[in-house]
Structures are given as C-alpha cells and as structure tokens.
C-alpha cells in the first residue's frame, strides 16, 4: 500500500482533531453560566474572592490565549483539573480507562466471533436454524443496549445469580467475569447486524461460479467452504465489523451507566450532568481521536485485504 496514502490520511486525521478540539473548547467557552459560579456552588462570596478564582483558573485571559494554553497542555498529556473535585483529569481518566478498554475489547471479540459464526451457520443451513438467525438479527438490532443490559441483568444476575449485578471487579479474571454481561449487552445490536451481513455474503458466495466450479472439480466440501466461500465472504463483513467496533466507543457509556461500571463513560455522563467542562473536553477529544484512529485502521485494513479498493477514495 502506498505510504503517501497513509501519510495523507494521517494528516487529515490530525487536522480534524485540531479543528474539533477547537470547536469543543469554543462550545464549552460559549456555554451559558460561568465557571466561577459553579466553583463557589451558590455560596455568596465577595467580588474579591470571585476575582481571585478567575485569576487562579486564568478565566480572564482572552479566548485564544486560553485555547492555546489548554491545547498545548493537552498535547503534553495535561488535561487540567476537574472543576467538581479538583482532581487531575489525566489521573481520573487513567484510573477508568482499563474498565472501558476491557469492555470494548470483550464486546469486539463477541461481535467478531459470535456474529460471524452465527452468520456462517445461517448462510450454510436452510430451515429452522436459518429462520431463527434471521428473526434474531432483525429483533436484536432493534434492542437498545440499555434494555439488553437490563434483561441480561435480570436473568443472569438477579434470577440465576451467575454474574455480579454491579461493579467492574479487581484483577483480570474478576474483571472479565464482571464485564461479560455488559459486553454482551453492548455487542448485541452490532452482533445482529454482523450476523445478517455475513449470512447474506455466505449465501452469495455459495452460489458463485468459483465455489460451484470448485465443487465440480471434486474439491472436498470442507476446503470449498474454508478457502472459497468463507474467505471471499469476509470482504463485506470486515468493513461492517470495523464500523461497528468504532461505534462501540460511543455506545459504551450507556452500558457502563446501566451496570454502574467505573469507566470513562460513566465519568462523562456525570461530568455532563455536573457541567464539569474540563472532564467533558478531555473525554470528548480522546473519544474523537479513538474513533478516528479505529476508522483509519479499518480503511487501511480494507485496502490491504482487497487490492481493488481504490486508495484515496473518500468514504
């Protein structure tokens, strides 16, 4: 793959990140209500104290000076202080990142493994198994993640007691055990879509000339399946999987909130409710960056799997 293509896409991503961090900062700056009033939390204070607070947080500097200071700090990994509890935003994020990453990773594995497996079964079998998979993927797509979370919780945690109801666990094994149900809830809609796309792709490949020809040549069914049908049907599937894994980033906070996990998402929801802009800004930038990087990786991956994809073609 030409290096120039990768470089151009990276440059575009960096440009988008700079502009979007400016927009996010500007939106928070323009928000009604002033930060120092939030800090004093309704107590009556003298104008001198307010002035001191404004000075401490450099609130009186011109807009562009403040943006520049914030932006250069962010580039150095310094996200500032949370307005609501004075903690360093970077520390807050670092503590919560493992939960969110594990959750998204588990969900991604579920989407790839279960989604493709169910799709292949639906594509190869006719009859009841296929019907169930079609129905499941149609309904599964319509189930909001938070509702799936509640159903799973009531069946497997409250009813059967197999999994813990809340919390994200300590240590790797315990964490995975705590995050299995949340990951399943998060994965469900995407899993349904991936299963359906896989099923369609497999069905198309099954009747393609090269698969029929291979069977006619006497190639064993198992090899036709593995080398001709499944391999070729993975092309459309890989894009869909990529798009949905990128989408998990934004979906994660709903599931985290439902299971009260201490991830980035819950932090964002709380920060939005409390108008803790330092935290909101930091998380927004990180999510936009992660979303952009995953999308870029997906495009590169797709281009390297399928040489016919014209490089540089915008999405």
């Amino acid at each position, binding site marked *: 793959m030409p290096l120039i293509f990768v470089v151009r896409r990276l440059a*575009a991503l960096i440009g*988008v*990140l700079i*502009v*979007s961090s400016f*927009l*996010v900062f500007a*939106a*928070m700056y*323009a*928000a*009604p209500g002033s930060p120092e009033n939030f800090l004093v939390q309704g107590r009556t204070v003298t104008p001198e104290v307010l002035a001191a607070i404004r000075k401490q947080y450099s609130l009186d500097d011109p807009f562009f000076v403040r943006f520049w200071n914030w932006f250069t700090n962010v580039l150095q990994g310094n996200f500032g202080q949370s307005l609501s509890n004075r903690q360093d935003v970077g520390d807050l994020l670092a503590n919560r990142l493992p939960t969110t990453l594990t959750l998204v990773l588990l969900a991604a594995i579920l989407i790839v493994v279960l989604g493709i497996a169910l799709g292949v079964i639906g594509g190869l079998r006719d009859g009841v198994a296929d019907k169930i998979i079609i129905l499941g993927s*149609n*309904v599964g*797509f*319509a*189930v*909001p*993640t*938070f*509702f799936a979370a*509640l*159903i799973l*919780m*009531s069946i497997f945690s*409250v009813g059967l007691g197999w999994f813990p*109801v809340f919390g994200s666990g300590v240590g790797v094994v315990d964490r995975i055990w705590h995050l299995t149900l949340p990951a399943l809830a998060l994965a469900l809609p995407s899993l349904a*879509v991936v299963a359906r*796309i896989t099923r369609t792709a497999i069905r198309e490949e099954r009747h393609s000339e090269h698969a029929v020809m291979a069977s006619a040549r006497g190639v064993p069914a198992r090899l036709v399946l593995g080398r001709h049908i499944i391999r070729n049907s993975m092309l459309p599937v890989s*894009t*869909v999987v990529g*798009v*949905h894994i*990128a*989408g998990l*980033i*934004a*979906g994660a*906070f*709903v599931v985290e*909130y*439902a299971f009260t996990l201490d991830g980035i998402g819950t932090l*964002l*929801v709380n*920060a*939005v*409710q409390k*108008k803790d*802009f330092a935290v*909101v800004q930091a998380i*927004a930038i990180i*999510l*936009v960056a992660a*979303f*952009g990087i995953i999308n870029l990786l997906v495009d590169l991956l797709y281009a390297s799997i399928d040489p016919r994809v014209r490089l540089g073609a*915008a*999405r």
Partner: protein
Amino acid sequence: MKALAKRLGPIGVGAAFIFAIVVVGALLAPLIAPYDPTIGSVTQRFQGPSLDHLFGTDQAGRDIFSRILWGARSSLVGPLIVVAVTGVLGTGIALTSVWWGGAVDSAISRVLDLLFAFPNLLLAMLAIAVFGPSLTTAALALSISYIPYTARVIRSMALRERNLAYVRSPQLQGISGAVITARHLVPNVAPLIITGATINFGFAMIEIAALSFLGLAVQPPLADWGLMVSNGQQSLLKGYPAESMLAGLFIVLTVASLGYIGERLGGRAAAGRRS
C-alpha cells in the same frame, strides 16, 4: 396503497400496522389513558396487571398503561424532530453542494467530514453539557450529527441527475437553480429521502431513549419509554420487572417494525449507513 402493501410483503404490512397502533396510541393518549401518567398513589404501588391497571403500577403507584400511552408521545416526538430537521437540512446541503459543485462542494464536504469525526451520541452529550439536559437539545444535536449521513446519499444520487437533460435544459433556458432544484431534483431524490427517514427514525429513537435513560433528554416526572426503562431498574432488581420490560418492549417493537419497513423500501444504504 396496494403497490405499497405488495412492496412491504405480509410481515411488512404487519409491521406498518404495529407502528400505526403506536402512533394512534400516542395521538389519542389524553382520551384513552385511564389515569394521569404523572400522579400515582402510595397505596397502589407495584400492583399486578388487573382490569383497573392493565399493565399494573410502578414504584410510585402510577398506572403503567397510561404511562406507556403518554410515553409514546415523547418517544415519537424526539425522532420526528430528528428526521424532519435532518431531512430538510441534509437534502438542502446536498443539493446546494451538487448544484454549485467545485469550491462550494468541496467546502461542504470538509464540514461534513468534520461532523463524521464525532460519534452521534458524543455530539449529543456535548450539546447537552453546554445547553443543559432536555429533549429538544438532544433531538437537535442528534439531527446535526445525522446530517452527513443523509447528505452523503442524496449528494451521490443528485450528482447522477445533475447532468441529465431534464436538469440541463431548463438551466439553458435561464431558469434559476433554486427553482430547478425544487421542481426537478427534489422529486427525483424524494423516495431516497423517505426511505432514509424511515431508517433514521429507528436509530434516533434508540439514541434518544438512551439519552433519556442516562437522564439527559426527557426529564422526570414526564412519561417516556427510555426514562421508564431507567426508572424501573430499581423495581426490576426487587422483582417487579413490569415497568422496564414493557417500556423496553415498546421501543423494540417500534424500532423493529420501522427497521423492517425501511429494509423493504430500500435498505440501510438509503440512510447513508455503511451497514
């Protein structure tokens, strides 16, 4: 009508019927809801289904059936705003872009690329952080984040039409771009707009319900399905699943019906989604 029914197929007609029931329920809520959706009675908490309370009552003793009916209103209004705003602005932006081409087109493309960089729900959360939680803020922010998807499809369809004779010849006659676009281009992309709206309605319903679930869109004590799922979470853990389950079920039914209809009409590609 008959052609539409044929296109939808038997399941599609069933889906349209379900969606129609939800819409009628929402419209007639003030007439047919037996109780006030926001006022409960302490002596009536956690009632099972009965003739008095068809779906039982919630933890505040409010009638769940009435809350589902009233909840249909706020649950439908949000996505309706999203679909309307996105349809109008997305189409407008796409057609402007196609009509002028060149610099205008590439400038608009850059802006849309920037919007693509924000996951939908994140953009909505940012807007809510700035303007405070409300259904209007959530719906308008989501509309903006849906615009690039809609604009992308309509742009590529309109590009193909742009150079056809029926667009070119009135232009030669000196008829203004706005008139040609409105008279000729819009009717030709209209089916795409409608199919896209059907699919986007479902997406929007799920995302607004999620925001309400997080306490960031519809505010209590108003009835809303997303809010009811979250309200009922505590009761569910205590063994009273009715409120959460029924509200969730209605979201699933509505979204699944619309999704099926949209799929029959032209598929998710019409909404500009890659999948």
